[in-house]
């Protein structure tokens, strides 16, 4: 019995540590509307999608939406998905629309508007912080792009 307070304190500290861990880490995730019933995309499909090349999944033609709401997020996106600088990426998207027409991926400066657009348009795929979609069942995470400490 004399060990109970010690055990309780240990469990309390462990809980604190684990909570501090999740609070100090954030993830950049790839999301789409839950209605789209997409569970994953291959790295090649993700790369093609954000380069403006049509990708088909099931009966849906996927469309990329670009999250411009956070410069740090966009920088990670350029490094991990586009694999090029901001200038090269914009030049590439322009070149692509000149070749096959259509429209360049839409750019959103506000995360809330972006998330609502993804929710309302099955087939639209974007990159967001996991904290921005916490507890939402109308969106599905289909991949993790990056994980790192909160600034």
């Amino acid at each position: 019995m004399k060990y109970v307070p010690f055990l309780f304190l240990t469990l309390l500290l462990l809980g604190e540590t684990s909570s501090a861990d999740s609070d100090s880490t954030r993830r950049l995730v790839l999301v789409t509307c839950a209605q789209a019933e997409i569970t994953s995309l291959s790295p090649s499909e993700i790369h093609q999608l954000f380069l403006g090349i049509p990708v088909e999944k099931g009966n849906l033609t996927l469309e990329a939406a670009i999250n411009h709401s956070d410069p740090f997020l966009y920088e990670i996106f350029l490094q991990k998905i586009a694999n090029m600088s901001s200038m090269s990426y914009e030049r590439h998207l322009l070149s692509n629309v000149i070749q096959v027409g259509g429209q360049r991926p839409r750019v959103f400066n506000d995360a809330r508007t972006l998330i609502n657009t993804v929710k309302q348009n099955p087939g639209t795929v974007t990159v967001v912080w996991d904290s921005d979609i916490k507890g939402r069942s109308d969106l599905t995470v289909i991949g993790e792009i990056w994980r790192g400490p909160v600034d």
Partner: protein
Amino acid sequence: MHKSSSRQGLILALGTVAALLLLKPSMVLADYESEFIPFPEVTVHYNDQDVPNLKQHGSTPLVDFFFTAKYNNNWRLLSELLISDDERDLERLIIGRVAANGKQLWLGRNHTDYDQWNRLFHRETYLQTTIHRPSIIEFEDDGGILPGHITGISMEDDGEVGGRTVNYGFTIGLGPTLKRAHLIPLDLLNINQGPHDLAVTARLSVQTLGENIKDSGLFAGHTTIPSESPGIQEVRQTVLGAYTNYAQTDNLVWRASVFYVANNLGLSGGIKRNESFGYAYLQPEYDLNPAWTFYGRLETSTGTSNDIYVQQIPAFISERSLIGTRYQLQNNQVIKFELAKVDQYGKRFVSTEMQWSAALP
């Protein structure tokens, strides 16, 4: 560049611009999306010699109005209307279907499958690293000696082979006519100009995605070119070639092409004459950082100096060596400086050029 004196053409051109502008608000319609991108440019040049047919110094403003619409995900319309002080040309006007699996089918006036420039940049010099295209792939009204446009049907498809994308394209339709020292493609703004005959071009390439589309390929074509040049009734032209974009490192890209062109000339009096020539260029591009790119290009040809067909188009540049730099001002503006040694109109001269170009807004 040739002068289109047709007032009707100008009215149609301006009407098209107005229509494109009016179409813009309809982006909100369901299943319909569009983009309207004007590409303005101004090129200032100075030549160290006074070459006949060229101004020794001057500036050339130009705008290419690009418009594209997408309906129901797959149906597309693409158009490019080019307006300069001496030219109004509906460069491209195609309607077609683009499937998610890469299959494309187009109908209208499109660029040919020769080399890589048409597919990557079309008329948009803003997207090019250099100010000018290599002379062999230059557009008809700028001294090009190969068909740059075909009005007809084109298709493109691709497939995965060993982790790489194999892409192929094919175009068939009406090619250009030879007159007034130029090749003149079918003009959609003045459709009754000149006779036009069959042209076919094809391309097969292997591509990988990346910062630059890295691709290498083969291309070929055959065109029957009716002629109104004195002494020449018809030219049957066959083109064979190969090209590559070789990204040696993240910063260094080599663009290169070789061409073999065989012309079967139908001369006055029923005389036939076979001629051929070769052409090649090599263009290294080095990205110092995302804003600055340094480049050079060496263009050379063999058999062009005594070729009767090439002599009909004196604006063709048979040799050129150049160095230059491209500076990306913002995400939508570029300034380029170029110093070139040129062989054109039978003269060798040095040309200095500066160009500002943009993709608006």
